[in-house]
């Protein structure tokens, strides 16, 4: 797979949130505000890149029968490092993300990429994949968080518009499902259309 293809894969075609539907739990729980979503996305990106790098580096050393245990240990180390750094330097964000920060350890996106990509590909490709998946995840979460914050709180990044009454249902779990479902439908529709037109164009040229 070409590097450009890997880089675009996580953001568009294999977007972890809207296309692969991975990491749904933090997606729904943390996206009450755009800032929290962005922070969660960046936290996952950090862990993804670091764990992909180490796992890819050790892929020929880690025995196959204990690979999951080894992956979890590596991922948990980076999550704990992140937790300690956030607790020390960004305490407000640390408390806002709450339990979902340590739960990154069992985020199926990170474990999934470790198992399906980093353990089979070279270090450079694995880091690009981690970065691309992380950016895709961050953008998706920021989009959901921004929509929920605008509709539910009448603000964006805590800057209030001061117009109209906010619909607080969008900040609640029900609103999370609603926004997630609608955005997924819209994005899948656009992707399907563009894929169809691309194939038609390819057919005509042939």
């Amino acid at each position: 797979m070409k590097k450009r293809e890997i880089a675009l894969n996580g953001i568009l075609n294999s977007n972890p949130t809207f296309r692969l539907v991975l990491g749904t739990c933090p997606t729904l729980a943390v996206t009450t505000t755009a800032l929290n979503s962005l922070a969660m996305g960046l936290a996952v990106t950090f862990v993804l890149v670091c764990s992909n790098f180490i796992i890819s580096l050790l892929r020929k050393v880690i025995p196959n029968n204990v690979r999951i245990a080894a992956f979890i240990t590596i991922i948990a180390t980076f999550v704990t490092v992140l937790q300690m750094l956030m607790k020390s330097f960004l305490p407000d964000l640390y408390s806002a993300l709450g339990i979902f920060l340590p739960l990154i350890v069992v985020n199926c996106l990170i474990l999934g990429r470790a198992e399906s990509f980093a353990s089979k590909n070279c270090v450079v490709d694995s880091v690009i994949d981690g970065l691309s998946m992380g950016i895709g995840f961050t953008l998706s979460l920021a989009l959901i968080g921004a929509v929920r914050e605008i509709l539910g709180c009448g603000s964006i990044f805590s800057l209030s518009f001061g117009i109209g009454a906010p619909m607080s249902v969008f900040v609640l779990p029900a609103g999370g499902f609603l926004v997630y479902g609608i955005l997924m439908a819209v994005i899948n529709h656009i992707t399907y259309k563009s894929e169809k037109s691309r194939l038609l164009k390819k057919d005509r040229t042939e």
Partner: protein
Amino acid sequence: MKSVVKTVLVLTLIALFAGLALGLVYALTAKSGSLPDKKALNSLVEASDYKELKLNGETALEFGTVKCVCVPLDENGKAIDDSLIFLTDGNSGFDGTVGMLILVKNGKVENLLCYENTETPGVGSNALTDSYLKQYVGLDITNDFKLKGSGDYWSKPKKQSGHEDDATEIEGYTSATRTSTAVVNAMSATHTYYVTNLNDLTEQINNLK
């Protein structure tokens, strides 16, 4: 056999390096001392900065643990007045200890707030609200504290025994007796520490003036 040894070796090495990395990051990020967040201290009493005092004598007391004593400072780094801020963990909460920040000035409780707790939200936390805690404001810290009716209280007689007979009686919060007890215990531990170390605390404040 060879594969088993390799498996054990690889997992051990991964765990070892993980431990080393965590230890290193912990050493870099661990807070020096136990001074509470400036935000929490500011909501108790506004000051430019806060100076942690040296803890002398016994800090793990019968009803709680005095974790930190600090003094509010002005722009020049001098102690504003005789105010002391105690961070004390009160024992016997419903889910562990309850950390209280207590502002004491000239032997009187000036202000207090809950700094950290794991009490049940909506139940135990009712005994940690400003409206409940304000009953402590103005009370004499040189007197011990006890929950009203303690001693003959049917469900928690042991937890409340040991307070001084002339202790100031505090109203408990119905349905949050354990949390009310933890707050009383934090106050009681603060009282014991204050009375025992008053001379040393006064000397340390005077050095900062």
